[in-house]
């Protein structure tokens, strides 16, 4: 038999044929993604119609016709309304936002003292950024500084009354300062409370377990407004004569209680995800309850639920806008309060103000939700076997 008598065998792989022309390039993309079938064509047409209908209006209103600077309402009103714009003009009144920007950020915090919240914000960012980047070492110290040291420093800086800083009482706080400080302190307080509640809910002691369940389910079952009403109207009646809380503190208590219940459920999810072997392993090493939880279970569980915690934080940031109902002035509250200013009362003011507030909230929440997705992906790969 001759070696080469066999039918021809190819020794090297054939090169892949290029895809047919109709499967490549822009046309193929369009065909696949936009006009795949009759239904698709209809959807595309509808989609284009929506975009064409919405986009020009938005761009016109928000950018082209918008007024960016100006001293008072005249720049944002038409001639008929007593302003300088031609009749039929509509456009965003960013001049209003521009003029009130300081108030939107700090409320009525005294102007000469505004460096204090700015300094706090800088410290916050300086501590937060390394916390968020996984590669930066010394997370424990960082967390300690961020969640323990920073609130103390921030408290003395913002409230004042010591080290020669003038006292700034909380009714003068407002705007983004209130929104961010309420939600940040709320999360810092609700995290340990949530851990305790979650542990309590999984406890073997029936009374503690039931108390935690009742607390968590009650708070989760009622709207935040009711909790805030409770804090603002009823709390004063609960306290003995002569003791009363600052309104800011009352809102803080309400928001923290509320967040703690949600946090507890998030953490409970993490606790449940830890395999039973971890608990049993800890038991077999002879660790006590707190050792088992503190050294073995919680470090794993908390790491698992970071996305959940960030999502709770997003929810909290959004929820702080409700404090305007108990007449505190967070970002949304200050914006709405300024609609009443006769100097800036125009038909465009409310729209512009609300969109500005929405944009600020959106910026924070969107950034955080992206971060939460990022950690989710990172943790996901870490645990996949």
């Amino acid at each position: 038999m001759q070696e080469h008598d066999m039918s021809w065998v190819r020794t090297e792989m054939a090169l892949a044929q290029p895809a047919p022309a109709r499967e490549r390039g822009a046309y193929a993309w369009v065909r696949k993604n936009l006009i795949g079938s009759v239904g698709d064509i209809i959807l595309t047409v509808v989609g284009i119609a929506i975009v064409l209908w919405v986009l020009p209006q938005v761009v016109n209103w928000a950018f082209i016709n918008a007024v960016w600077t100006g001293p008072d309402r005249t720049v944002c009103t038409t001639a008929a309304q007593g302003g300088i714009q031609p009749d039929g003009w509509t456009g965003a009144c960013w001049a209003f936002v521009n003029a009130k920007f300081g108030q939107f950020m700090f409320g009525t915090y005294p102007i000469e003292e505004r460096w204090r919240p700015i300094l706090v914000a800088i410290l916050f960012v300086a501590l937060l950024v390394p916390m968020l980047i996984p590669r930066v070492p010394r997370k424990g110290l960082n967390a300690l500084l961020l969640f323990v040291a920073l609130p103390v420093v921030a408290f003395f800086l913002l409230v004042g009354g010591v080290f020669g800083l003038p006292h700034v009482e909380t009714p003068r706080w407002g705007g983004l300062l209130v929104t961010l400080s309420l939600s940040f302190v709320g999360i810092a307080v609700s995290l340990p409370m949530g851990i305790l509640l979650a542990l309590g809910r999984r406890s073997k002691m029936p009374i503690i377990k039931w108390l935690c369940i009742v607390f968590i389910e009650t708070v989760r079952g009622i709207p935040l407004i009711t909790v805030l009403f409770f804090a603002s109207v009823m709390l004063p009646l609960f306290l003995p004569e002569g003791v009363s809380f600052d309104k800011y503190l009352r809102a803080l208590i309400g928001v923290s209680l509320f967040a703690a219940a949600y946090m507890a459920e998030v953490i409970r999810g993490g606790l449940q995800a830890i395999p039973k072997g971890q608990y049993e392993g800890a038991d077999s090493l002879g660790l006590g309850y707190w050792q088992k939880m503190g050294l073995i279970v919680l470090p794993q569980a908390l790491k698992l639920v970071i996305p959940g915690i960030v999502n709770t934080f997003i929810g909290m940031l959004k929820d702080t806008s409700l404090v305007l109902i108990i007449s505190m002035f967070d970002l949304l509250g200050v914006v709405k309060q300024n609609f009443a200013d006769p100097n800036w009362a125009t038909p465009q003011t409310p729209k512009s103000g609300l969109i500005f507030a929405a944009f600020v909230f959106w910026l924070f929440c969107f950034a955080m939700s992206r971060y939460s997705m990022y950690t989710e992906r990172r943790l996901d790969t870490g645990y996949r076997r």
Partner: protein
Amino acid sequence: MKHIALGILGAAALGFTASAASAGTLDTVKQKGFIQCGVSTGLAGFSAPDDKGDWKGIDADFCRAVAAAVFGDATKVKFTPLSAKERFTALQSGEIDILSRNTTWTSNRDSALGLDFVGVTYYDGQGFMINAKKLPGVNSALQLSGAAVCVQSGTTTELNLADYFKKNKMEYNPVVFEKLEEVNAAYDAGRCDAYTTDQSGLYGIRLTLSSPADHVVLPEIISKEPLGPAVRQGDDQWAHIARWTYFALLNAEEAGVTQANVDEMKTSTDPNIQRLLGTEPDGKYGADLGLSNDFVVNIVKAVGNYGEMFERNVGSGSPLKIARGINALWTKGGLQYGPPIR
């Protein structure tokens, strides 16, 4: 349980507590060095923050007057903005020392809510405002049957409205909001045909509408709204101080003592003015109230007399341009009557 303990801990540690025992508000106020004053969240002419966050208006000035009487310094006052719902609990719980927030004096509030009204700093009445351009031919509230009426919730206004339409056998749809800004915005957007609140308020609100000239205030006044400051029940001394601050403002106007001439007036030989300004040789009217004898001088220096306060905030000196009307002194045919200091 946890939260209360936490709250107290937090409050104690953070120094947030504002102690306000009911026995001796004056002492507590003196001790902490300022008066905590409850105002509205923003009603032009009565209490509204200006661009710099300083509170302006009759109600705010009244608190300044009390501060001037107590400390001789009108700046020793801090303002707490309150919604209609929160105002009473805030006073009851001691969060504020005096409620000066265009609040109507009613028997129920004086009794069941634990308030003690000091006097009537502004005699008001509830009225209606309509857009005359959209509703030509409507010139009386009695033509409003079937109208949608914007009103703020949690006020006597809401109750008067229901009573008025019921009494006149007319129908209406209430459109009720929590906050004044929201009512204003909804009315301005055309959600309602009519807007009802205290007449003084209507004039202030008209200014903030997109075309003020289109709107008219109807002539009917459907209720009595005596607006005045209130203090907690059960502290007579503090109530007296607030009450006589108010009377001092009236008496100063009656005697012709103004912010400008108060120093000259101190040399006056008129025994009435001497008693008022504490220059009478052995008068101690101020000291008897727990104040300094020249407390009226401090008040008038700080905020002027009642007339000046009125004109500056809601009258001819303000954009509201409300006439004195029944708020004129009794000597000029109004209702403002200050019992004598003697």
